[in-house]
């Protein structure tokens, strides 16, 4: 019985998080914080910070990583499955409904003009997300006194821009793989992590 209760509770909580956070990612972390740390006391706020750090180092949407983690902590594999399902389901339903209308919607000329304006906003949003990440990166670099990450960033920027401008047939996936391989070769020797727990300082 206890199991069923926690499953239901996980489902409810994460559906709520999935339904009420606009803007994804960090907006969701804030709601997960108030729901899972303050209200339900499923995890501590230190733990949430750890998960966020892990989420940043693993691929995939950060909010989903958090849901999987909290679910697993509370009720093992099934818990993680339920929590993950809960956080994805609301946006799945909404998108499914939107997908049935969007094409017809775009045919209306005033809506099409609206979306032309929105295009500019999307570019700004992506750019400002990138700049925020860059600022965070530079703060970290100052703390550690290293310059190499900046070289990686500039190379990534230039290569990607060249690919975009000349519409080259070079996959971004390879770009990420190459960056990973170079990082592996260049940073490994420098004794990347000296003490346990350094990862949190690195990532937060």
């Amino acid at each position, binding site marked *: 019985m206890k199991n069923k209760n926690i499953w239901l509770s996980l489902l409810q909580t994460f559906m709520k998080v*999935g339904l009420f*956070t*606009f*803007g*994804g990612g960090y907006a969701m972390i804030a709601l997960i914080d108030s729901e899972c740390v303050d209200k339900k006391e499923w995890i501590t706020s230190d733990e949430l910070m750890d998960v966020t750090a892990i989420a*940043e*180092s*693993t*691929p*995939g*949407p950060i909010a*989903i990583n958090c849901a*999987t*983690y909290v679910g*697993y902590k509370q009720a093992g*594999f099934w818990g993680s499955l339920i929590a993950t399902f809960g956080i994805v389901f*609301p*946006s*799945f339903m909404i998108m*499914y409904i*939107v*997908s049935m209308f*969007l094409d017809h919607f775009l045919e209306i000329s005033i809506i099409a*003009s609206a*979306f032309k*304006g*929105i*295009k*500019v*906003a*999307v*570019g*700004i*949003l992506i*750019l*400002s997300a*990138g700049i925020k*990440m860059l600022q965070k*990166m530079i703060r970290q670099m100052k703390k550690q006194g290293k310059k190499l990450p900046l070289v*990686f*960033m500039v190379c*990534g*920027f*230039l*290569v990607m821009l060249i690919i975009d*401008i*000349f519409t080259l047939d070079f996959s*971004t*996936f390879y770009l*990420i793989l190459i*960056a*990973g*391989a170079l*990082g*592996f*070769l260049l940073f490994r020797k420098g004794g*990347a*992590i000296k003490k346990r727990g350094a*990862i949190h300082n*690195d990532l937060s």
Partner: protein
Amino acid sequence: MIYLELFLAFLKIGCFAFGGAYGAIPLIQEVVLSHSWIDPETLIYFIAVSESTPGPIMVNPATYVGSQQGGVFGAVAATVGVVLPSFIIILLVTAVFKGFLKNKNIQATLKGIKPALVGIIIATGVFMISDNLMRGPLVSRIVIDWRGAIILGLLTLAIVMQKKIFKKSLSPILLIVISACMGMMVYSI
């Protein structure tokens, strides 16, 4: 088979999407365009729709493209594909390999990926904005689209004003709403 194709394509995105949704946008763009599942215009509109609807931004395009290509089952296949890698990785990291992320080699690899990805994201944003400002064929893109330029200028002004006067940043949804209104006005003239 379209379901398998959708599943695998979004699985690939899920595996490589470090840095959350914005890191995934260039990948989604590439995969979706190379399969010609949706055209570039619709994809950009779609990112805006994702920003203005609740839920993880990455899941939204998966569901949308999936349902366009293969109905309900297509939507499920694509959504499961994009979520599965992070689900499995978190399970493994928390349950099996507790020290995995502290491993020196993994950390070194991530140290290469993360900054490069910041560069990739910034480049994507810069390209999207400049693509919007210019018209005509690729090489001779010197004709500036004044409508796009007006919107960009006004939006930048709005962001700066908000920062300076209210000391707060403009929320993404508000930015999208403002830009939609501007689009309606400027492009209807």
